């Protein structure tokens, strides 16, 4: 009775979402599947599984997924921990005062610019190297540690963490207010909990649980990231979207379906991930 009154606009919103987002995605998945087996595509010659076979005989795709999972997992872990730590330590400056403004600014930086910045600052002869040279910490460019285009994807992770952390600080700050974490922690305190317990058993679990859906989204973004690994990564292994683009832009146009196959594997993995996250119960909160 009361519910139905204000649910109609929500239902309409959902229907609109289905129209402009879900249907095109459904279509795209179908088109990509057709392309990958040769049923669609300008130079295709009919149903064939040769592209799937050729791709699976190559270990490259597995390595690409492995690298992407590693980068996404490390980025999520670092960003979330850093954001939590910074929020809880700097809660008051983040609420009032100049920092509450300034913390928004990094959001205005896109992936390409972040990649450019990380490269300019941390490459062998970058800005950081110049300062180290100036202070005599290193004598020569060759002594600069390998921070970009390196085997551990340090540059890639750094760029992603720099982009994600401010967003999560802001999100946690908002959730802190709306979930009344302060009041809950106060209650725990009066019941005799130590400050550490208030932190680890009240504040952190609440913030993490409520923001879980956004954490999943971050994981997916980083997993499918393109511009940052293109500039800051290596040729082998490559992250998934860079590999997909390489396969897509291959000179031999008849091999284009391989890119669509990698894209389908990507979709399958991401769906599996979201499915797991939802089944493990955290997503959706407790309403």
């Amino acid at each position: 009775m009361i519910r139905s009154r204000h649910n109609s606009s929500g239902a309409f919103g959902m229907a609109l979402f289905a129209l402009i987002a879900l249907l095109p995605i459904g279509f795209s998945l179908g088109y990509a599947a057709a392309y990958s087996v040769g049923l669609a595509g300008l130079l295709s010659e009919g149903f064939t599984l040769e592209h799937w076979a050729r791709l699976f005989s190559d270990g490259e795709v597995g390595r690409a997924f492995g690298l992407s999972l590693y980068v996404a997992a490390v980025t999520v872990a670092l960003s979330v921990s850093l954001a939590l730590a910074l929020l809880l330590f700097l809660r008051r400056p983040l609420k009032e005062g100049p920092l509450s403004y300034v913390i928004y600014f990094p959001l205005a930086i896109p992936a390409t610019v972040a990649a450019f910045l990380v490269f300019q600052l941390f490459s062998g002869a970058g800005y950081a190297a110049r300062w180290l040279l100036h202070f005599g910490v290193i004598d020569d460019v060759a002594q600069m540690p390998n921070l970009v285009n390196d085997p551990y994807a340090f540059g890639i992770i750094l760029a992603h963490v720099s982009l994600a952390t401010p967003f999560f600080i802001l999100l946690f700050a908002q959730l802190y207010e709306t979930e009344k974490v302060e009041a809950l922690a106060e209650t725990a305190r009066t019941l005799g909990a130590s400050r550490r317990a208030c932190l680890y058993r009240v504040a952190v679990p609440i913030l993490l649980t409520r923001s879980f859906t956004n954490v999943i989204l971050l994981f997916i973004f980083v997993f499918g990231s393109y511009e940052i690994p293109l500039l800051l990564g290596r040729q082998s292994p490559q992250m998934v979207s860079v590999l997909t683009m390489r396969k897509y832009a291959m000179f031999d146009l008849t091999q284009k379906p391989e890119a669509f196959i990698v894209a389908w594997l990507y979709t399958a993995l991401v769906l599996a991930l979201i499915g797991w996250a939802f089944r493990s119960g955290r997503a959706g909160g407790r309403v």
Partner: protein
Amino acid sequence: MNGPFPATRSPRRLLRGAAAVLLALACLFPFAYLILLSLAKAWPFPDLLPRALSFDLWARVLTGPSDLGASFLLSCALSLVVASLSTAAGFVTGKFIAYHPARKKLLFLAYLPFIMSPVILGTCLMYLYLKLDLAGNAAGVALAQTMFAYGFAIVFFSAFWNPEIKALEDLVFTLGGSTFDAYRRVLLPVSKGMLLICFFQTFLISWFQYGLTLLIGTGKVQTLPVKVYDYVNEANLFYAAMASCLLILPPAALLWVNKRFVFNEMREG
């Protein structure tokens, strides 16, 4: 009152202050560095500061034949429309999903725009939009951008709707208020902060959407990012810095203006 996390001892307060300043500087450093690099005439290795500054580059670009002014206005209009629609729709739809019994299934659907590899999705969407005659115009581009912005907004707001807010809303109804009253007096004030962040993020999703805009707009919808994006990845790093400034300064300015208004209102309210 100190609360459960008091900042009693001075060294701790000093550390806190220092950390806050460091964080603020870290947030502003990219802007300062990019502006400096874009004004540099020559900045060879191993100098710490540019050898010479010049406004030539900015003058040439701002007054040159590229017509950045029109692009800027187009981008602003496009992104404002996408952001407003997505945030509003996400706010409402997020609420619908959060209080719905089939909550998990519906929320799962919101992730679907993000499950496809962006590179391939571009081609599939281009095919679809070409067939529907939506390619090559601003409306098509807005629609494509809204796909992602809307999905993001739904996911974002799903973190927000909780029983307390529901209780407040129901309270308004039991007291005889209408939906309009519930929104105006309770829901919107409570969610101002969330709305601002979401509006900003969806604005950015639209503003920075380069690949899709290029494909679906078939190069005819020349938003500012489409015009300057190429520079960021090319050899000339002064142009790259300037293009980066053009990309990031408008959203930063918008944010500053917005935060000022909303922030002040929040403080007074």
